[in-house]
């Protein structure tokens, strides 16, 4: 029998993997993919709460999260392309112009 806790633990594992990926990788695109992974982990917990609490609102929120993720991916990738045009790299250690 698969319970709510199973799904929430799976969601926690995926979220943690996303956080670790953001911290250990230097490639901006892979960091972006890890952010998408974290969003998906949260979506999974929304849907499992909606299923086990007999509610529909979790699924509605997943719908809106996906829309925001699509907008965010488009704008973020455009920013990465713009940075790459200026600095010829996507390594985030080289993007330190605002650090003093």
């Amino acid at each position, binding site marked *: 029998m698969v319970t709510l806790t199973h799904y929430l633990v799976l969601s926690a594992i995926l979220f943690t993997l996303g956080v670790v990926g953001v911290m250990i990788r*230097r490639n901006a695109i892979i960091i972006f993919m890890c952010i998408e992974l974290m969003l998906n982990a949260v979506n999974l917990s929304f849907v499992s709460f909606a299923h086990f609490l007999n509610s529909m609102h979790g699924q509605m929120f997943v719908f809106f999260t996906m829309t925001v993720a699509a907008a965010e991916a488009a*704008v973020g990738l455009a920013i990465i392309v713009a940075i790459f045009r200026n600095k010829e790299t996507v390594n985030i250690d080289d993007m330190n112009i605002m650090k003093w």
Partner: protein
Amino acid sequence: MEAYLFYIMAAVSVGAAVYLIFEKNPVHSALYLIMTLISIAVLYILLEAQFIAAVQIIVYAGAIMVLFLFVIMLLNLNVREEIKDVLLFQKIPAIIMGILLFLTICLILKSRFLQGKQGEYTSTYINTIGNTKLIGNLLFTDYLLPFELTSILLFVAAIGVIILAKRKL
């Protein structure tokens, strides 16, 4: 049967996520992320959220990941980019922090805060009307204002991308 499917899909998604983090080649990372997204879509079907599962595959695994692969191809990244890693000492503390974060989340899960009120949309009720029809009904009644705001968000994002992608920034 359902439990087996859950465990298989959980193992696939976690394994693909681990490969996504530790893979050197960005293209392989993107393909592993697609694998994770599709296994999560199967979990959505197990949770009787068929519409969300379809949208997951169409929007995430289809549109967003194609955008990622397109940008990777456009930038022509090569693998040697990550070899000059100046923050090598950051890896082990990051993994330890990740394990601590996971334990914290598990502690919260063990507490009793997660008891919610049972809603009216039971499984049989959803199956008699249909998941997609219910989502459509809610989208145009209770969630009408967020729905309209979402369209404005997408519009603003499209304008922003066009401005950011111009040759002279």
